[in-house]
């Protein structure tokens, strides 16, 4: 899998609001890149009609 560019990674990281020193930023980028193949696998799963469905219990609100 192609590695993420420094610019793309910095944009993602900026969104988190976490300010990492350069050495830690580089380490996190490596960890993220190592996770990418698993994320690709996740997105390849055929989720068909599967929803993100909340459970609604019949006794909701009862103590």
């Amino acid at each position, binding site marked *: 899998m192609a590695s993420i560019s420094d610019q793309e990674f910095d944009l*993602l*990281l900026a*969104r*988190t*609001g*976490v*300010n*990492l020193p350069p050495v*830690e930023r580089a*380490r*996190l980028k490596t*960890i*993220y890149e*190592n*996770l990418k193949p*698993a*994320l690709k*696998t*996740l*997105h390849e*799963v055929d*989720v*068909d009609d*599967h*929803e*993100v*469905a909340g459970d609604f219990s019949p*006794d909701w609100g009862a*103590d």
Partner: protein
Amino acid sequence: MAQTSSDLCFLTIRQAGELLRGLEISPVELTRAFLERIQQVDSRVHSYVTLLADSALAEARTAEGEILQGRYRGPLHGIPLAHKDLYDTAGVRTSGQSKVLENRVPSRDATVIARLREAGSVLLGKVAMYEFALGGPETSLFDQAVNPWDLECVSGGSSSGSGAAVAAGLCMGSLGSDTGGSIRWPASVCGTVGLKPTYGRSSRFGVLPLSWSLDHCGPLTRTVEDTAYMLQAIAGHDPNDPTSSRAPVPDYSAALREDVKGLTIGVPAHYCFDTAAGVDPEVVAAVKQALSELEDLGATVREVEVPCMEYAGIADVVIMISEAYAYHSRNLKSQLDNYGQPLHYWFTLGGLMSGNDVIQAHRVRSRVKREFADLLRQVDLVAMPTVGGPAPKTQGFDIFSFLEWPNFMGPFNITGMPAISVPCGFHSTGLPLGLQLTGRPFDEPTVLRAAYAYEQRAKWYERRPAL
């Protein structure tokens, strides 16, 4: 019967309970034995982060008085326990083993802690954990527990102190918590029993969260019967936990009296015996031997196809780190230095997940739940190794290598199914190995029954680490 203090520390809860009820030993004598052993041994194991010697002895005296007056509360009365340092304990620091909460002293008990107190147990102290239940052996606060079977190895995580303390005879049982295997991994590598109950079976109120939708609270003990006793005490509805179930609580110990004849156990061999993917051949052999013994006891074992095992683990990880980031994001921005380094990588990684990643993980979660629901119409239990290998050495251990392991535990956090790790032998390195059995939601009785039948035949729990 003459008992040394060390012998007392390796009694099971059932054995100790019989002696306590029969007035053959006192809770004070038992508690003193544990405090003495902790003094002798824990400087090497590092399982305790807070020792409560004075209050433990006071609780033991109370239990002694009640038992002498004929007010015996049940199998946990006078039993010394210690719990992971993320369970709120009134008046006692609960830190999550993080500098972020170094001085946090809750004013009330977590529901499950209160229930264990109600059952008459004695709280010896709080035990070590991976920081906020995820970080890794390096944390920002306190030493980390090590493996009593080999002090150079990790004791698993994140309930690292729970596994180490139970295995080393430093408490009779311990509550851990499990978001992706954090009860079962330490149980497996420390040679103890560890149960992740069904989601909703035990209250999460007063427990520092890692991931609300994946966190489970459950016990680690030396035997399955002892796990049944602890589950009995903590199970049941709690109005303070919005995900707590109203399902009736059965008699878990009664389930142990039944045998396994007629039970069908499915084994996803295509995934869990894949040595090419990194599963240790000795783990495969030990689990196959355990399954063969369950067959001898009357169960039917057959291979099953569970395609979702290939990707259920990554769905667990994505949901876990995203929820963890949501919980910690404010503190990460304002006090990053108070988080240990492996941990802040994990949590910031959660912040890097896109909305699409998280939604896909939840949709995959729905698919995995349906796949296991279909499977559990054909079989009563699903069996596999708890983890693919024995405890790794602490030196050089990279917690992120976890992402490359075949993941046998995370799938059952996203389905919420009950899952137990029971010792199934030893690796040639001398380290323990675990068999995992999982079952239908709220069918802890069948999970415990099969684990107990195997345990009583194999009797691995009789071995002790040389400390």
